[in-house]
């Protein structure tokens, strides 16, 4: 039984609809990205994938082929598109164990969305209470908050006024809800009025 298992993405049923969104807004599902949650004393000063753990709340930094996201005073999320989930946990655990930290593979716990375009901020503001102003939620910012009724980790990737880009991490079981919510929130930008 060496043949590979196929992977399935919670957003597959929604991709066609998301592709059809009007101009000014792009919502795409991020491919399968390995995620590891890590907990360690911030004083440990560990370096991970070439980066220091960001200790400023609500920020993220690039790390290796992915990111290091601040989740709490002693909690971070490391992402890597190019590493196998179990390998990422093992790698991170290897770094953290000596300093009393732990790592957990949460690759399938959350899925990622990219939301970009001139209307991205506007759409997010319909369900997100934090201030997304380009001078406030600048690239490198992150926030654990709610979008609609789903808990999310929101990352500012590109701050350009006219073409902002955000990444949204959401619990896999909420992915369908969030996609439905986004499609609904974008409906007003459709040129032709649908018969609702």
């Amino acid at each position, binding site marked *: 039984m060496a043949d590979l298992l196929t992977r399935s993405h919670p957003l597959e049923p929604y991709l066609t609809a998301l592709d059809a969104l009007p101009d000014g807004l792009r919502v795409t599902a991020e491919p399968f990205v390995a995620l590891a949650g890590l907990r360690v004393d911030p004083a440990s000063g560990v370096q991970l994938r070439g980066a220091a753990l960001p200790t400023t*709340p*609500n920020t993220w930094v690039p790390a290796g082929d992915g990111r290091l996201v601040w*989740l*709490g*005073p002693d*909690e971070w999320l490391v992402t890597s598109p190019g590493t196998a989930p179990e390998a990422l946990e093992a790698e991170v655990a290897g770094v953290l164990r000596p300093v009393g930290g732990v790592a957990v593979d949460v690759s399938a716990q959350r899925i990622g969305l990219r939301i970009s375009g001139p209307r991205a901020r506007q759409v997010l503001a319909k369900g997100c*209470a*934090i201030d997304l102003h380009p001078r406030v939620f600048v690239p490198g910012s992150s*926030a*654990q*908050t*709610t979008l609609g009724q789903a*808990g999310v980790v929101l990352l500012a990737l590109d701050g350009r006024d006219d073409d902002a880009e955000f990444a949204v991490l959401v619990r896999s079981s909420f992915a369908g809800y969030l996609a439905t919510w986004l499609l609904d929130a974008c409906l007003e930008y459709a040129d032709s009025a649908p018969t609702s």
Partner: protein
Amino acid sequence: MQLIECPWCGPREEVEFHYGGQAGVPYPEDPAALDDVQWAQYVFFRDNPKGRFEERWSHAAGCRRWFNAVRDTATYRFERVQRPDTTQAGTR
């Protein structure tokens, strides 16, 4: 609808927080040593002042950290919030 200052994440909407009631009610050292009256006090009885109140809150929809706050239950104004690690005892 208040803005509550999470000691880590900064001001966030009230709805992101979970209320934990009175602060400074530690779990008894040795519950078995308490009589029923003392145990009931720990389990069921909490202060309920009108005015200044030392409370526990958790930033449930954010960093999920518990913290202490001093709030006025009449005006709902927060006097201050405080990370538990800056207090000696537990924050119950």
